[in-house]
């Protein structure tokens, strides 16, 4: 099995697993309990909070642990405007956000918020000037992803944050794809809120965080006990949070090496595929995450590529993963201006730290055969 779908999720790092195991076995305390068991859990959660904060240049008190990226996005999109009065009710976002953000925005729109959706250019890059036109003094929140999950295109978050702040709006970024891959600093980006999740960088699934700049209020999505300073009630997922912390620490330490390795393999993969007839790389190669490769072979259905690769033991993706497992034309690819048919031709291969040169070469040769075979079939079946 060759795994090239690291943008969907990554394998759990053995070292992360080791860090988590005590909290799945003997250290089962509730972090809110006063006794020694509880205190041990509390210390572990605090330490992890420090690691996650350090990954993004934040203060530990600014980290709210959640069940993952989707919850962090929902907390930001639904909880931030709600906490900022009735005057500012508008939200500005982009057409290529993850559904966790887009659907939350749509839900707010249904509840009466004015929603402006900014379209990116053909490479998936947002133009700050276009955002400027959409933001006004009624804007409560600007939410724009740090990098797109399908294209890998990195967005000009800082410029957009400056625009948001000029108009007095809060700036949130969904950084799920960037966190742990590339350096990320909330001071430098000037964002007020940022979402991240552990399983995109070799941590466990089911745990993520919303960074929320000190002094910014949020209406919680769920109430109950006073966990996470009253902003996210519920007994802490101690083992998950510990794993998140360990993954964050390892990502920070190994980031450069990992990114260089991924970039090398990704570029190698594209070099071996680019001469295939109709091959086209989508996105913005100059502003791209290190492991992302979104390709298209004109006229060849992305579904056929993904399924044939799977039958050869190679895991790729047509775009973002969908819960039902079926493959829809991607809103990201239609968002960058592809027609629905072309948008179904995208194939996303995302490299990870564990991939080898041999795997990349094997993938290239299998994919080459599949693409050629698809072209033959198109000729014979019309």
């Amino acid at each position, binding site marked *: 099995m060759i795994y090239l779908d690291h943008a969907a999720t990554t394998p759990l790092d053995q070292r992360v697993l080791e860090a988590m195991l005590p909290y799945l076995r003997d250290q089962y305390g509730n972090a809110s309990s006063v006794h020694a068991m509880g205190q041990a859990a509390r210390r572990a959660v605090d330490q992890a909070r420090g690691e996650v904060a350090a990954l993004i240049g934040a203060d530990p008190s600014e980290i709210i642990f959640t069940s993952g990226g989707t919850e962090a996005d929902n907390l930001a999109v639904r909880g931030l405007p709600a906490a900022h009065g009735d005057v500012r009710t508008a939200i500005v976002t982009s057409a290529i956000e993850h559904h966790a953000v887009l659907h939350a925005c749509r839900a707010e729109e249904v509840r009466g918020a004015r929603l402006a959706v900014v379209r990116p250019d053909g490479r998936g890059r947002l133009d700050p000037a276009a955002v400027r036109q959409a933001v006004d003094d009624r804007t409560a929140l600007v939410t724009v992803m740090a990098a797109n999950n399908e294209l890998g295109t990195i967005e000009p978050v800082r410029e957009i944050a400056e625009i948001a702040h000029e108009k007095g709006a809060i700036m949130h970024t969904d950084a799920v794809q960037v966190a742990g891959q590339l350096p990320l600093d909330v001071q430098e980006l000037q964002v007020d809120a940022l979402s991240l999740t552990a399983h995109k960088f070799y941590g466990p699934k089911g745990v993520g965080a919303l960074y929320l700049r000190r002094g910014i209020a949020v209406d919680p999505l769920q109430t109950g006990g006073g966990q996470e300073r009253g902003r996210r009630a519920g007994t802490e997922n101690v083992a998950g949070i510990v794993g998140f912390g360990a993954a964050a620490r390892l990502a920070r330490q190994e980031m450069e090496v990992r990114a260089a390795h991924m970039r090398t393999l990704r570029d190698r993969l594209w070099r071996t595929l680019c001469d295939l007839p109709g091959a086209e790389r989508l996105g913005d190669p100059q502003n791209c995450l290190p492991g992302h490769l979104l390709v298209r072979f004109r006229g060849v259905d992305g579904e056929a590529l993904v399924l044939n690769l799977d039958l050869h033991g190679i895991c790729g993706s047509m775009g973002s993963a969908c819960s039902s*497992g*079926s493959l829809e034309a991607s809103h990201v690819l239609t968002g960058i201006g592809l027609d629905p048919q072309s948008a179904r031709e995208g194939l996303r291969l995302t490299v990870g730290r564990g991939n080898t040169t041999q795997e990349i070469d094997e993938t290239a040769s299998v994919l080459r055969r599949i693409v050629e075979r698809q072209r033959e079939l198109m000729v014979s079946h019309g």
Partner: protein
Amino acid sequence: MSGGVDSSVAAALLVQEGYDVIGVTMEIWPEMSEEQMAHQGGCCSIGAVEDARSVCTALGIPHYVLNLRERFHQQVIENFRSEYLRGRTPNPCIACNREVKFSELLRRAAALDADYLATGHYARVEEAEAGYRLLRAADSRKDQTYVLWGLGQSELRRVLFPVGHYEKPEIRKVAQSLGLRTWDKPDSQEICFVSGDYRQLVTEALPKGRFVDRLGQDLGESPPITHFTVGQRRGIGLAAERPYYVLELRSGENTVVIGHREELDGRGCIVEDVHFVSDAWPEAAFDCTVRIRAHGREAPARVQPLGAGRVGVSFLEAQTAIAPGQSAVFYAGDDCLGGGIIEQAI
């Protein structure tokens, strides 16, 4: 794979025979609310995907969900709606088989480098010198050739109907012995996408119509014509000595022609959009048996080619309630020769 017994056993039989099998389920429904899901049973529902997946897991074969929503919507649902609005009685299974399963799905299967597309239909395909023949199922009560008349040579050489060689009780036994959890799941209904009332699909606020008799005499106000099909007795609600039946629906005039039982009889029909399994158009009139509804009996008839994809069918004995929009399917013994859509009764 619909998640039902027949396609599950079809997959199992092929695995036993040594084929390299890939399970696929068509996703054909728009994303649905919980409420819609609760009302939906039928052939390709969400629950069906889960059942099909579990069968594939048990068989140790891959399973994929293929998105055919757009195609299904255009070719089946829209066709169903527009046919009803024209006062016709469509058979969506036939549209689905012709325009979705044995065209687009077949193409997708070929894209997986599959040599065949197998389904759980009760029918048989046989290779003969003159080409591929479409034959009735071994279990004549379950035979589904009526909904497969749209298949031609290029489809038949690439399809397999593994259950068509067995009786249904045998199929259930195989399912049970394989431990398929769907072994006693009820047979899917005739119209997979309408578990309740098909008229939900044609609920556009249509004006009321008029009841008229054969001679055009007005008999009163009628519900919209989409509430009726030819041969229907229910829902007319006019007081009369003898019961009224729907004889004809005239969408242009928005009238429902009604009359008494004997007036439903017809000697024949014009059939359009005709296709022959052999892909060859007959040079002369021929005798065969013709079936004009999914569960009807076949009747001996003469088929006269008319050109432009049309034929005339004259029955030896009058048939009752010949409904435009339904398929007329031609048989010679066990051979399903082809069929077409009834344009009008004569």
